[in-house]
């Protein structure tokens, strides 16, 4: 716990990256109904990826 504060940012970024890997390990069939399979915007894994990238940007900036 004596690590410099900036390490908290690095840990947060690492957690978000791990979350991103977890998100993409979920099969598409569990996210998008068959009826919507042709509509890419309904794949919530992309929504999650956008959010994760935004969070990484925030924790990179505010350190």
């Amino acid at each position, binding site marked *: 716990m004596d690590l410099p504060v900036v390490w908290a940012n690095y840990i947060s970024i690492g957690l978000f990256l791990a979350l991103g890997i977890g998100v993409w390990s979920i099969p598409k069939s569990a996210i998008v109904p068959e009826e919507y399979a042709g509509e890419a915007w309904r794949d*919530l894994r992309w929504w999650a990826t956008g959010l994760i990238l935004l969070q990484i940007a925030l924790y990179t900036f505010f350190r």
Partner: protein
Amino acid sequence: MHPIDLAVVVAYVALITYVGIRFAQRVKTAKDFFLAGRSLTWWVIGLSIIGTNVDTNGYIGASGNAYSIGIAQANFEWIGAIPAMIIAALIFIPLYWRAGVYSIPEYLGLRYNQAVRVVAASIVVTVSVFAMGVAMWALAITLQTFIGWPIWLGILVSGTVVGLYSVAGGLGAVAITDSIQVCIMFLCGLIIVGIGISDAGGSANFVAKLTAENPTHLQAYLPSDHESYPWHAVILGLGLVLSPAYWVGGQAILQRTLGAKTQWDASAGMMFAAVAKTFVPVLIVFPGLLALVMMAQIEYPDMALPWVIKNVLPVGISGLMFVAIIAALQSSIDSSINSTALIITRDIRHVLMKNHNPDSDLKIGRLLTLGLLLSAMCIAPYIGNLGGIFNFLQSLLSLFQGPMLALLLLGAMTKRATGTAGIITLVSGVMLAGILSWGVELNMLFVAFFTFCYAVPALWIISGFTKPHSDEHLRKLTYSPWSSSDPNKQSAA
């Protein structure tokens, strides 16, 4: 208050009441009342989730905290929310939705046993009644501060407005009015940012002025020896335990996802809420920083937002901002009342009264909504005398969040956890949290983390000695999208 500001407030109250009562005409059954007839679309769900989430503490308290500690306050909206919201959207919401439940205690009842359901429901109801009283009191204080109404009048008027649409329209009216309220909140937030940065002479000047005397106010984390928010406690307690427990197990939050018209809308609603949540610091953190930049002369940090409204915003906009604060409080109160009424009706009444008549759920739900509202209105005037009750409530929440999260996680992700192990772990985990909280006087973030660390292995080990449910029973209650017979496969219907 300026007459134009007053006109804005009156117009808002009239709009919310009209929309709420119009929605009431659609309520014919208990399902309409508690789950909006499973008709909500993803964007209404998302906005309503944010409306429920941003409350008194989130608005006035967070601005005050941002005045004191800076952008670190935003951790409650970022690391302390977004990961859990993504997990809730992709794993837990599909699970609850497929289980066909009305509430989280109902899911726990199916997954474990009825004892776990009743204990979990009782904990949620107890905390909710006090939380509603606190919110109602905060609303009355806000009305007193801005327009000089006595506390009793503020409670009476706000309670009547919330009651009109909550009792009549149920979750549908609550979700629609929440959505309008959140749009008002974001509009006001953007106006404050625009005016604030313009008054400071641009964003570069704003940053320079802010960091000149407060060099750490743009750092996301505080040192490990910080009294309230050391960075490791924020990541471990808030990020890994309290936040997931809130976002995957909070009934008031998740109820609107259970009222979605499809499973995809339910998940997308939570994901949309996460997008909006990322920008919530614009509403609740920026005003605190702006008060610092403008060198506000305030007695204590919680006055930061009222100072900004009074001194920075022009006439009309300050009325709108005042409306935004009322909206934040109302949207939290109405959601709590609706979800608490649901839990009492289904998770306590249905389990304890074997001869109940499900046809009377709508009538009982409405009566309970009214009763809970009146209880909150009766408790509210005395909240101020209790002193520190908000902190007490937060500590109370931290008592059961760790064990509850362990039950939800192991219950959803494995077939090992058993009903007997569930009730033993829940009760012993809450007792351990009580000892850590009041005996050892540990920081509440650490209480949550350590009780979670206890509950996971306890549930795992005790389950090894007790009888699990059958695989068939657990098929739709556990998450296994990677198995060959995939019960998690989505359907739009």
